[in-house]
């Protein structure tokens, strides 16, 4: 029951969906439609596990008065407040999900700016990573460095001032050697994925059940 049934579900489900791909008939289509309808429903329940984990970790911190435990309130309060405000709270008192509402405000003016700013940190990090990594330590590192510099210059107007061949060279590297590398990696990755798919369907790889052994 604990291991055999899940492995059986995987086997049957896997083979069913694999065969389904080759059958355009309406019976097979309706199986696929069931899958696309059901999968989001089943997986959305998993969010409860996440809420449970986050709550437990931060409740522990607060109880143990661990380092920075005060900040745990900054996690827990909005975590429970957001769904209440968005779904239950009356609209007349700033509830609901559409603007203007507290829910919308928290999303639009706190979450979105923080996420966008987090994303934009990449501009800084890409510069410092380039500084530290692009050193001609070896022939290989030099290749990496030169390719990066040529493509980088080819992208901006200033590269064109250096010569019209410059952007072209950058584009050439992107279009040919870069594509060759990408294609080889993708082919390798493709085979790896296929093998893993098979290993899971046929129960060779059982890691996802949790635990390495029994």
């Amino acid at each position, binding site marked *: 029951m604990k291991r055999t049934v899940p492995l059986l579900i995987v086997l049957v489900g896997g083979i069913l969906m694999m065969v389904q791909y080759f059958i355009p008939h309406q019976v097979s289509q309706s199986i696929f439609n069931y899958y696309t309808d059901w999968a989001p429903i089943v997986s959305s329940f998993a969010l409860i596990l996440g809420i449970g984990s986050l709550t437990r970790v931060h409740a522990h911190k607060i109880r143990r008065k661990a380092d920075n435990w005060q900040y745990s309130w900054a996690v827990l309060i909005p975590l429970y407040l957001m769904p209440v405000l968005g779904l239950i709270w009356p609209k007349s008192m700033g509830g609901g999900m559409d603007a203007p509402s507290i829910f919308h405000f928290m999303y*639009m003016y706190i979450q*979105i700016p923080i*996420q*966008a700013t987090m*994303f934009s940190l990449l*501009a*800084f990090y*890409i*510069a*410092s990573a*380039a*500084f*530290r990594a*692009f*050193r*001609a*330590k070896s022939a*290989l590192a030099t290749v990496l*460095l030169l390719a990066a*510099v040529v493509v*980088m*210059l080819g*992208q*901006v*107007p*200033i590269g*064109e*001032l250096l010569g019209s061949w410059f952007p072209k060279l950058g584009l050439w590297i*992107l*279009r040919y050697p870069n594509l060759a590398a990408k294609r080889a990696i993708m082919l390798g990755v493709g085979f790896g994925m296929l093998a893993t798919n098979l290993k899971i369907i046929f129960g060779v790889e059982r890691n996802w059940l949790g635990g390495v052994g029994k």
Partner: protein
Amino acid sequence: MSAVSIWERMLNIDRRWIFLGIGIVSVVPFFLRFGLPVVTTDEVESIYNYVDSLGSEDAIFVSFDFAPGTQAENMPMAVAVIRHAFHNHVPVFMTASFPIHQTMMISAIDYVLNPQTEGFYQNVPFGEWERIREKGITDRDEIVAAWEAEGNELPDGALGWAFEGRDYALLGFAPVFNLVILGMTNSIETQYPQDINGNPTGEMPMLHEHKSLREVDMVLTCSGSGVCVWWVTFAREKIGLPVAFGVTAVMATDYYPYIQTGQVLGQMGGLRGAAEYEVMLEENGITPSTDKAFTGMDVQSAAHILIILFIIIGNIAYFAGGFHKKRLLKGGR
């Protein structure tokens, strides 16, 4: 000994100096415009020429398919094309593929209609020119004449009027957007009975003249994700609607094949693509000046140069300090 320590210090320079450098070069060009020349490319020129060939009897769609994250790249594209269309009196339908994308749509049209903007268009909300519509005036020149006959005057600095319902319609977001595109190939009004302000689209002159996507001449999808492909699959492949892409720089190479196969009219890739369009608008006197993307390109140039300088400094320090002879630094690849 002290010479080595200088090189060593340079190699292990505090990262925060690099951060500061990037921070400075990303702010300064906004105040001191260098205006480095941007050379236009075929992919953008083909969009420009196509929009330029349209007139008041045609119509275009501008689809907002990006989130605030890629706003800097996608927004100027949409703004440039909208201003170009307004200049030629081409009606513009605006849609959004997700709720958050609709906020992008609103800020784009706000920017174009805002009197603070250099070269803005004076907004005439749908309700305000109801009398003119009721008289049955549909021709755009006659609408303007009737409106100005009522005593309205174009403010200083405005490039023209923008009649809501005749020059633009804010259709906004509707759920399951790929099916919405499909539905609009039959009728725009059934998919969007109302615009985002609650105005009935059925009463809009531009929807009388352009009932479905078949009667529309182009769609520009400003996209930060794969949504742009929806327009190709559901509109271009189904009814042959010309599609133009406005995509982020990172996506540009991935979508290049669509241009080669002719499925896409043209493509603006990242800030650079938008800057090219702005340059063409300015050169042809459609806008008085270039806009945010062009300034952004100065930042790009400066940042790229700075990063390359950092790399050069790093390498000088590395070799001058003799580190290439030792294996001091961490291993790995």
